[in-house]
């Protein structure tokens, strides 16, 4: 898939992952890379950007093994952004799918 399109939508994916609950970088990287074809590293610049926007906040929490982990938390403004962006994206997808599927059946989708 085109990397530009992917880039734009990954922010939204990370927000959606955080909606499930607070998480740390490695876990988020895994969740994202398992679903979408991106490098594990991709999630870190996104998290930094989201944190600077104030849509996610961070805190440190002890882990059983090794040093404390940096956790990311979806803020209220993040939740609002997620909901509005998600709605917009799903609407856009619906519109695009309609066009693409119509193209596939040679414009006979209406019949």
């Amino acid at each position, binding site marked *: 898939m085109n990397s530009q399109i992917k880039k734009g939508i990954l922010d939204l994916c990370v927000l959606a992952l955080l909606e499930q609950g607070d998480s740390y970088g*490695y876990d988020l*990287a895994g969740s994202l890379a398992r679903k979408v074809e991106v*490098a*594990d590293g*991709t999630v*870190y610049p996104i998290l*930094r950007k989201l944190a600077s926007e104030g849509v996610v906040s961070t805190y440190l929490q002890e882990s059983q093994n090794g040093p404390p982990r940096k956790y990311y938390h979806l803020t209220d403004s993040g939740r609002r952004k997620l909901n509005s962006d998600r709605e917009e994206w799903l609407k856009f997808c619906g519109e695009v799918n309609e066009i693409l599927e119509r193209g596939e059946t040679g414009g006979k989708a209406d019949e």
Partner: protein
Amino acid sequence: MNKTEYLNRLSNELGHMPYGDVKDIMQSIEEHFDEGLSEGRSEEEIAAGLGDPKELANEFKDGAKFNQIMKKRKKVDNGRDGTGRIFVVVFNIFVGVAMWLVLLAAIIAALCILGVDLGIIGVIVASIIMGKITEFIVPFIFLLLTLICVAIFLVVILILGIKYYGKGLKAYIRWNRHVWNYGLGED
């Protein structure tokens, strides 16, 4: 590529970013390695999974550009709440409102003078027509001409004055609103 090599290359590629940012980024990637290692993955495997360090660094840099823009916007926001508003209030209390009131008073005074002037003209004209003035008719006509000149002068001054008072006040209010919203010296 092992962990050390990957981190070195990433840190080199980050180059000119502020030290605090680089440190923060390096910490999060190091954490990623440690998590992976504790899951039993090899350093090489984790490094490969992270993707090209140069590409990753570029993504961080893009994000940093975005941060700078956000910081600038925050500065404008601060001006919005701070000095700009205080300046508008203080300036209006001590200078702005007083200045516009004085100008308004001058316009009203000019209107009054014009009224009196026209009144005197009317009285003199009426007196001459009704034949009440028989002596000193030449000086009275000179006085009349002088008063008419004064009236024309005042009318011109008033038309211009009121027009520019309106324009000036509008511009002044716009300027106040700008300072109120964005602070001084931000354009």
